């Protein structure tokens, strides 16, 4: 199962090292964007948004349509974020807010119903066929050669965007008035409400921010991922692993866990190719046993 020779050869070869390290970062950063939305919503609202993958999917489809209409990838990415945020507000106000405080099973059922409805809606609107946006013209460049390794320019852009957006959302939640209000409401909604602040609106906006993160991740990745109804499910599982390892509610934790998981996938594909998924779940199990709050988690948003 272990391919020690292959791993040793890879780690001692600059080209392989570059390939695997950069691929780990690429995998990790897109996971981070999705997982940060999950962790943000959980940290404040104490709701595990099992339907988060649907917003990732919606972001990708919205971006696809806008890209078809305008040919502008950056506009398409923004549309993916905004579209997912609007869908998130609708979902939060009409559906998930009705099960706040109820047991997890009820939340899970509500989310699962939403996933099925959205998947079918996507099939009706965009069809069941695989759609692909294609690499935007500005990124159709040969890969950079670094120490013999290959680094695609498009992936460098994705990693940079993920870091900027992740830091931006951390700033919004920790440093702005909006962030302070939602964090206060998370601790004591009644008290914040008594101060004349309409807590439900802030909760809806926070939910929208979380969904926008999933949406922008879907939109940014759309050029290299096929769009199909149900595409959110695959990313959802991995983003939950990131969230659990990083700590439910911790954005820095999600960042750290995403990098760890990305590198596990990329290095693991060389050193233990048959146990890559197993290693990820094993890490999650170990974290749950020895540090149930996650690497940087404290149960609520820091």
């Amino acid at each position: 199962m272990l391919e020690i020779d292959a791993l040793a050869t890879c780690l001692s070869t600059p080209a392989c090292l570059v390939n695997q390290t950069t691929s780990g970062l690429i995998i990790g950063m897109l996971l981070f964007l999705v997982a940060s939305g999950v962790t943000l919503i959980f940290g404040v609202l104490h709701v595990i948004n099992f339907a988060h993958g649907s917003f990732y999917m919606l972001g990708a489809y919205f971006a696809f349509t806008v890209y078809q209409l305008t040919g502008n990838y950056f506009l398409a990415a923004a549309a993916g974020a905004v579209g997912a945020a609007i869908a998130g507000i609708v979902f939060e106000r009409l559906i998930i807010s009705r099960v706040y405080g109820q047991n997890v099973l009820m939340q899970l059922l509500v989310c699962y119903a939403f996933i099925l409805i959205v998947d079918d809606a996507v099939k009706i609107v965009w069809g069941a066929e695989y759609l692909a946006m294609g690499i935007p013209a500005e990124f159709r460049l040969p890969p950079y050669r670094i120490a013999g390794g290959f680094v695609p320019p498009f992936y460098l852009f994705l990693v940079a965007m993920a870091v900027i957006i992740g830091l931006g959302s951390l700033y919004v939640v920790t440093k702005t008035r909006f962030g302070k209000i939602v964090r206060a409401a998370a601790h004591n909604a009644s008290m914040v409400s008594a101060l004349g602040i309409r807590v439900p609106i802030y909760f809806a906006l926070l939910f929208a921010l979380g969904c926008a993160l999933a949406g922008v991740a879907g939109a940014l990745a759309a050029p290299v991922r096929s769009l199909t109804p149900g595409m959110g499910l695959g990313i959802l599982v991995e983003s939950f692993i990131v969230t659990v390892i990083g700590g439910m509610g911790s954005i820095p934790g999600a960042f750290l866990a995403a990098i760890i998981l990305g590198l596990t996938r990329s290095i693991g594909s060389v050193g233990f190719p048959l146990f890559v998924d197993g290693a990820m779940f094993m890490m999650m199990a170990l974290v749950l046993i020895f540090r149930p709050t996650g690497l940087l988690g404290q149960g609520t948003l820091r």
Partner: protein
Amino acid sequence: MKTSDIRPRRRIDRRTVLKGAVGVAALGTGISGFPAYLKAAGKPIRVGMPTIMSGRVAILGESSVAAAQLQINRVNKAGGIDGRPLELVVRDSRGKPDEAARMTRDLVNNEGCDVILDAEASSASFAVNEVVRDIKKFCIHSNSETSSLTADPKNQVPWVFRSARQGIHDAVGGGLYAARVAKEKGLKRWATVSPDYAYGRANTEEFMEYVKIFAPEVEIIEQTWPKIFQPDYTENVTALLNAQPQAVYSCLWGGDLVAFTDQASLYGLFDQFEAFAVNLGDYPVITAIKSLPAGVHSGSRYHKDIPDTPENEAWYAEFMANSKVLPTNWSWENATAMDFIIAALKATGGDTDAEKMGKATAGMTIDSPFGAGGKLTMRDSDHTLVNYMVGYSKTISKDPYVVDFKQTDWADIYKHEEEWKKRNGYI
């Protein structure tokens, strides 16, 4: 008061009751004495079709239903089977074996379906196979390519058939083609990237086995197995880059193949290796990839030019005019299944008895736009389809997307299939 309006009630006497009883009995006996197919005269013949209509591979189910319905519309327009129209009853199993089995029973018991067209993927097909053997309903498996479904005598009964490609046929065809290219271009170091589940592993193993049989100098230096529906293939792409093979084989399919191709293109992977992808030729895949790399060796799926005949071109045009999705490999397989069902029903005069339909179908050859030389045969010995299009083409970046199709000679396939069957103890 008009008393004339009031009539005395007619008494029902003993004789009247007896006459009535005799009449009812006679009528009842007469009806039950009729042959079943005469009783059903004019009643639609219902074909139950469990398939996948939702989720990531919904397009496969949708393109299957569209194809089956197309053939049904044709026969109904021509008057049906001795005046009885055919009716398709579709159920969405979401590809789950337990659901597929339950729905098959439901289609027969509650929907009154007389025939089953099993348009499931392999895992669910085996579940449907169990059911139709048990309840004895005529069935054609239209999509499962797993060779053992019909090759293994344990799965064979007189009323069950397969109209799909068979893995071993494609493995021999692909192996012969790839070995020829390997010899021509000196491709010795091979890698594979295929989905990590039963189909992916079995298909890859069979393909590489035959490449090595026909070109013994070939060695496999890297195998990477992405999970089915994996969103990100970067780790697999870089694993291939690190191994630096001369050729790569993949049986990724559907949206996964679209995503892999786009992600691999970012690394310039197709400029570095000779690539073979058995499932690339499906229309929804090949049209979805925005920058389709040229020169990739693509296995035959369904294509309007393969075979390059007016009949196939006409079928494609008719399908496109009646379907909201593009045709897939599953489309021609389901159109073929329906053609065999129709032909069997015509042969039995509309009698849906499983044994009679099975007898009519075994060994039957039909005219088909999808067959080599315009003919397809349901082989008698193992109830599987033969003489369909097996071979490889090369991709170009625009319509018609694949060119230069090389058909594998069926004589070669038969020869190696027989050896394979002997090796596996099937004959």
